[in-house]
């Protein structure tokens, strides 16, 4: 097996393991270790790491988990990620978690934070709110205090104080992580035939599980191995996939898009791994640094307010330009308020900039890929026929 295949096989194994064996073994390896779970779209993993705990991305159960109990908690018109997350919880698959964070992404996840408090009262859980005001003295002050409260909660979980030096050290590691992730994305954008999106996806999912030190090494190994792969280059259309930032698409959906004649050159599957756009400063107050990075140097998504109407959606246009994409695929989970309410606005902005797009919905356990392949394939063909390439 090639080095790349080894890396991907390892990532696939982590992805398939819904008992989170890696995290369990990590915890058991040293007495007193803790694991803190978090859901999309963003938490400051640095603080979890600085507490000596393992941040574990909980992204639902995907298409490998049959949801039996979870469906009893939700009506039919609510997306699948909370049901499969509840399923993971009630079937004991998350029984090793010492904490759980629910970011302010939507009302379903928001309310799930309250449900978790009732269902798993022994697990410290917190709704993690991010500011929608971006002034340092208003949203910044609020957010700094929120981060301090989170730090205190993590200190309680870990049983020791979390000092500024520890936070700075963690920031340094995650800065490295983000640099490496950006490098992988840049590599894929430049030579997408060498970095199939299903592989990149698995690599990124591994980052939701592995300790950051280990994942950083894995990213470096992939960046060394992938360029050496001899893979055929296809005349595929270059697309950006957007809308899949919470409930994840099935791996087969990602494969189907690329099998149908597209190269995915950018996506928003796991925003947390590149949320800060550049290195978070290591000098000064690290809590303040994290807060100001969120306010002024972070990504864009539906759950983050854009105060300037003129800038709304431009991040997507910029991604299209930066990645020399030829179109955008809006892939939203069914019933997803953030993705579906946002979509018409983003489509309007793309239309103004002459960027073609298509849209479809999925669920994390969608099995029928033929319609996706047809739609994406037709889109790829239409780009080839009618664009200026």
């Amino acid at each position, binding site marked *: 097996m090639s080095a790349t295949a080894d890396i991907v096989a390892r990532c696939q194994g982590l992805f398939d393991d819904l008992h989170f064996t890696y995290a369990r073994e990590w915890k058991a390896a040293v007495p007193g270790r803790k694991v803190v779970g978090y859901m999309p779209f963003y938490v400051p993993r640095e603080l979890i790491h600085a507490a000596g705990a393992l941040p574990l991305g909980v992204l639902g159960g995907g298409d490998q988990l049959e949801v039996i109990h979870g469906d009893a908690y939700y*009506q039919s018109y609510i997306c699948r990620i909370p049901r499969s997350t509840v399923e993971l919880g009630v079937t004991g698959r998350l029984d090793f978690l010492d904490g759980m964070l629910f970011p*302010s992404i939507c009302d379903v996840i*928001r309310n799930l934070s*309250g449900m978790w408090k*009732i269902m798993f009262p022994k697990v410290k859980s917190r*709704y993690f709110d991010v500011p929608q005001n971006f002034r340092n003295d*208003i949203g910044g002050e609020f957010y700094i205090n929120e981060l301090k409260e989170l730090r205190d909660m993590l200190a309680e979980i870990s049983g020791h104080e979390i000092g500024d030096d520890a936070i700075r050290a963690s920031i340094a590691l995650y800065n490295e992580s983000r640099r490496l992730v950006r490098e992988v994305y840049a590599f894929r954008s430049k030579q997408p035939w060498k970095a199939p999106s299903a592989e990149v996806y698995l690599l990124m999912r591994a980052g939701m599980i592995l300790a950051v030190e280990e994942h950083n090494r894995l990213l470096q190994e992939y960046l060394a191995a992938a360029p050496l792969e001899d893979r055929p280059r296809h005349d595929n259309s270059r697309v950006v996939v957007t809308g899949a930032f919470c409930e994840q698409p099935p791996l087969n959906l990602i494969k189907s898009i690329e099998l149908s004649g597209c190269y995915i050159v950018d996506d928003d599957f796991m925003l947390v791994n590149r949320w800060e756009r550049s290195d978070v400063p290591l000098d000064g107050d690290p809590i303040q640094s994290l807060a100001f990075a969120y306010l002024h140097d972070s990504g864009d998504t539906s759950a983050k307010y854009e105060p300037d109407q003129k800038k709304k959606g431009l991040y997507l246009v910029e991604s299209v330009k930066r990645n020399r994409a030829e179109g955008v695929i809006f892939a939203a989970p069914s019933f997803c308020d953030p993705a579906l309410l946002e979509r*018409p606005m983003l489509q309007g902005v793309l239309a103004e900039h002459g960027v073609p797009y298509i849209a479809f919905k999925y669920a994390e356990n969608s099995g029928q890929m033929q319609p996706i392949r047809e739609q994406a394939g037709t889109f790829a063909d239409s780009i080839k026929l009618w664009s200026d390439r």
Partner: protein
Amino acid sequence: MSAMPVAEVVKEQSMLKQKEMIAANYELLVTAREAGRKVVSTFVPGNLNELIMCFDMANNLPEINAIQNGMRKKSGAYIMEAEKRGHSEDVCTYVKADLGMIAKGNLGPDGRQLPDPDLLLLSYTGCFTFMKWFELLRQQYKCETAMLHVPYEGDGHASKNMRDYVVKQLKEEVIPKLERASGVKFDIDRLRQYLKESAKAEQDFVWVLESAKHKPSPIDAYFGGVYYIGPIFTSFRGTEDATEYYRLLRSEIAQRLADKLGPVTPDGEMHEERYRLVVEGPPNWTSFRDFWKMFYDEGAVVVASTYTKVGGLYDLGFRHDPEHPLESLAEYCLGCYTNRNLPSRIDLIEKYLNEYEADGLLINSIKSCNSFSAGQLLMLREIERRTGKPGAFIETDLVDPRYFSPANVKNRLESYLQMIEQKRHGAAPPSAAAE
């Protein structure tokens, strides 16, 4: 939140007063441009009406427009118009009813054109969809938007950090934008005066709500309740009109209590109170009367509801406080029902079931409102576990008529009431009527 009844057996003075107030407010809105009046749009949860009044602005509430259109059977067409224009079938029908209404000429519930807002006051309170709704409107109107981020009470209480954050935004973001949009300088003493008036109305309003603790209850706290919350949740809180309305309402209800009368319904007096229910969730508006009739035909009275707290929770003691005006506005926003975490909501419902001596909880789960609906199945089971009282679960929608199935709802309600009856007579109840 007032309907124009097709046929009323008796029009109480408070009903007439409310009708006048609503008509006058729509008049204010539709004549705003001619009169040189500025218009602000905002939301019911986190509705800072007293603050808006300080700037002599007309307060437009898109949710209320959607409700009015729903009750007038216009919302279905508006929703389909919005869906044709690319808005998903999965999202909030208030939003789609509003966008569809705008697309079709922005005619208000009385058929006259509503004005474009001069400012969107995005009171981001208790609902994620609000942010997207006003971003969509901002794209449409290209007008100034003031974001007021009201943090969610994830741990079941408002922290100092949250309150300070809201107050700072009011001072630095909201008030300056209201000044700019209106051309009126902020006068905090005016705000104090309006808040003083609000507190008076709130006192009488809570008295009215709590009258349902009596047997028989003189009010229906859900179907009747949505009329009672009208002034206090909308463009009238802080006005002398609202204070007068609640004074009148209180005296009417006091008389009903003295006469041991049940609630007024569209078909007249309800004579026999057979079942006392707590209801969680918004009502369906497109079949409001039919929905209500299913209850009173069975002698079922709603003695407490959570929807009547969506625009402000007053029956736990909160009153607007003129001595601390901005802090009080922050406190009000933070305390709106859907801004409270699920465990707090469950605690509140349990309290209502006990204090109002209710027979059980009925959840009307709204398809397009995740803020209310996500977690309601757990809520049902938890309430049953804590109180031993049976729960019922029905599914409808706010203003999309496609999602109200009268036969299913009636069937479910009748089965539930039979279950209560059986439990009273000592038979073991079947398990909770939720699917």
